[in-house]
């Protein structure tokens, strides 16, 4: 039962990671690729880690080995660090891309370029 839950979490994680990678290969410009990268791979990795945490909790209740407690807590810390740094890093990439003069290619509205051209 618990094994099935961990397996489902791993499956969802792999699915979203796959869609994220397909997204960065398919989308037309940098900003839409960033959408795919940031959201999908972060969400996928959160689910992978959730699967690992469920598995570690199951092993902990079975064997009572403190190694699995360490595994679960460290995995949670790694994922929290990853979620924060990924969001901030994608913000930095988007800002750098706009500063280097790359405008969103198919775009219906661009308020930032309007403000920059007015200055």
């Amino acid at each position, binding site marked *: 039962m618990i*094994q099935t839950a*961990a*397996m489902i979490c*791993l499956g969802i*994680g*792999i699915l979203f*990671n*796959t869609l*994220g*990678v*397909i997204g*960065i*290969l398919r989308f037309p410009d*940098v900003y839409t*690729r*960033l959408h795919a*990268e940031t959201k999908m*791979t*972060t969400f*996928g*990795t959160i689910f*992978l*880690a959730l699967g*690992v945490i469920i*598995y*570690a909790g199951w092993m902990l209740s079975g064997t009572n080995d403190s*190694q699995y407690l*360490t*595994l679960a807590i*460290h*995995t949670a*810390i*790694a994922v929290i*660090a*990853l979620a924060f*740094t*990924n969001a*901030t*890093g*994608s913000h*930095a*990439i988007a*800002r*750098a*891309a706009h*500063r*280097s003069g*790359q405008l969103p290619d198919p775009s219906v509205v661009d308020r930032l370029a309007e403000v920059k051209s007015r200055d």
Partner: protein
Amino acid sequence: MNDIFFIAIAVLGLLILFAALRLAIGPTAPDRVVALDTINTLVVGGMILLAVYLGQTIFVDVAIVYALLSFLGTIAISKYIGGEL
């Protein structure tokens, strides 16, 4: 159960190869940074799964440090591309 972790690690390795394709063909520098960032995230996920597969908890500590260092790398490259360095 261990087989499933192995399959997941294999799929992640395959995905890293596909992301490396974007790293190779990406027309502009920001595209390449996006691909690099994807690879970093996938490597962290793969390390967490490897820690379970091999039974070595120390791999997760490596994953934490790798996540923080790859963030620093992304920030440095972005600053360089944006012309603030």
